[in-house]
């Protein structure tokens, strides 16, 4: 009559039919005579039923498509790169969407629009004039005109001279591309012949990131086209994923990361991230935006993930 109370684990397993015949008989006998255990059993069963009633979660059409696209050809050469670049885009999109604070007025950004004769390299335009210069520091929101502002409308004005890649000069020791430049091939295929991929790196850890990518696939790869004279890690995957994991992606524009630079924002480490919005045809970047992403708010990033200056690949219509 007064059998010992079964453990809650046993009651729970009994609900699931995960007990032996002997245990089942014991539990049933006990529950028939013990109101408190009966109540426990009932509440646990209710909890179980309520969870079950949530039903399966369905993927949306967009999610389904995104997954397919991301994994498309994943078993073939270059798939890794495509996937990683997609992830990078998502990661940055998430970061931008939630933590973005627009920044304008950086001298190196003001130089982006170019005159026809100059054909300034976008990469050069965006890079600080002196890579050894003092780091960018933002001490006050007064320096930031708005929450999220387009940095510059550069439609039809972003033009890049062939051979403008700074990476060959800036980082002659840059390692070979660490992943297949699948995405670059895709984008260059959309571009006019002669389009140039530009990449550059500052004094930071591009090489380190490349090494990491080569070794363990932990870095997003810089991509090269044409002469293949440059290829270097951009953001490490870890950093990008950390941002992504911390943030919900709500940005829907087709983003293309252009540059990332470590800065100080109100005394806290941050990224100044510049990305481009590609025009519908996919041939050219029609708008640049820049954001400060606060790393503390994003996640704790390993120092090696930050990079002191990283400029990404991109292909522009000449």
């Amino acid at each position, binding site marked *: 009559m007064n059998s010992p109370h079964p*453990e*809650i*684990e046993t*009651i*729970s*397993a009994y609900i*699931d039919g*995960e007990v032996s015949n002997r245990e089942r008989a014991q539990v049933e006998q006990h529950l028939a005579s013990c109101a408190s255990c009966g109540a*426990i059993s009932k*509440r*646990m069963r*209710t*909890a*179980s*039923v*309520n*969870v*079950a*009633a*949530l*039903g*399966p*979660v*369905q*993927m*949306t059409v967009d*999610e*389904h498509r*995104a*997954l*397919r696209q*991301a*994994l498309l*050809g*994943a*078993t*073939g050469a270059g798939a890794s790169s495509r*996937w990683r670049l997609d*992830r990078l885009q*998502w990661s940055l999109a*998430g970061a931008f969407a939630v933590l973005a604070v627009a920044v304008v007025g950086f001298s190196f950004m003001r130089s982006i629009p170019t005159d026809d004769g100059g054909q300034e390299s976008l990469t050069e335009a965006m890079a600080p004039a002196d890579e050894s210069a003092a780091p960018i520091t933002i001490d006050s929101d007064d320096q930031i005109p708005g929450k999220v502002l387009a940095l510059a409308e550069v439609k039809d004005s972003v033009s890049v001279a062939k051979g403008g890649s700074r990476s060959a000069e800036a980082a002659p020791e840059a390692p070979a591309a660490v992943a297949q430049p699948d995405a670059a091939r895709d984008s260059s295929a959309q571009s006019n012949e002669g389009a140039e991929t530009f990449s550059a790196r500052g004094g930071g850890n591009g090489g380190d990131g490349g090494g990491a990518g080569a070794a363990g696939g932990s870095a997003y790869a810089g991509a090269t086209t044409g002469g293949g004279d440059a290829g270097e890690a951009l953001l490490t995957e870890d950093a990008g*994923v*950390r941002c*992504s*994991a*911390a*943030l*919900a*992606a709500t940005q829907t524009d087709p983003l293309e990361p252009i540059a990332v630079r470590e800065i100080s924002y109100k005394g806290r480490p941050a990224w100044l991230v510049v990305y481009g919005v590609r025009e519908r045809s996919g041939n050219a970047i029609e708008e640049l935006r820049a954001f400060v992403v606060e790393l503390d*708010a*994003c*996640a*704790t990033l390993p120092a090696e993930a930050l990079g002191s200056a990283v400029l990404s690949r991109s292909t522009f219509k000449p």
Partner: protein
Amino acid sequence: MRDPDLEAQSDELLVSSFVESKDQRALEILLGRHESRVFGIAYRILGNRADALDATQDVFLTVFRKAGSFRGQAAFTTWLYRLTTNACHDIGRRKARTPLPMETLPHSESPGSGDMETRLGVENALRALPQDQRVAVVMRDLYDLDYEQIAAATGVPLGTVKSRIARGRQALAGLLDDTGSMEPGGGGGRLRKQK
């Protein structure tokens, strides 16, 4: 191009087809069969769709890359669930210091699954569980895995699975009222404590 013969094959044979003949259609079929389930489990574990999608990508990329290492000692789904819990664990660990507010709207589409308030309450109660318990409860109650499958998927002994499910349910019961519904006007997130 659809291939009825291929589509009729078991998961394990599809993996073999890919490993032996590099038939990518086999992987596409596997993806089609399991992506929603992987996504769903990941969503329930991680609490938001972006992370769930990330985890799903991780899982299938690993499947694609490591299909050759799958030897068929266990069911393909066991391996898949293991990858899913690992991926969720990795993502959860990365964002542990900066938890985001969870999504407040459920995305289940099963009919007749209760009123919105109750659903939100149950979802929030689930999210309040420690991840280990949440994984076990989700796999058991939502995806109908048995204890052995959950043990294989999570890499813990059967007794631990038993304990996690029981404690998870106990915690849920403490967050839900006696009928399993939520306190009215709780904003979908405030749950009545069990007396």
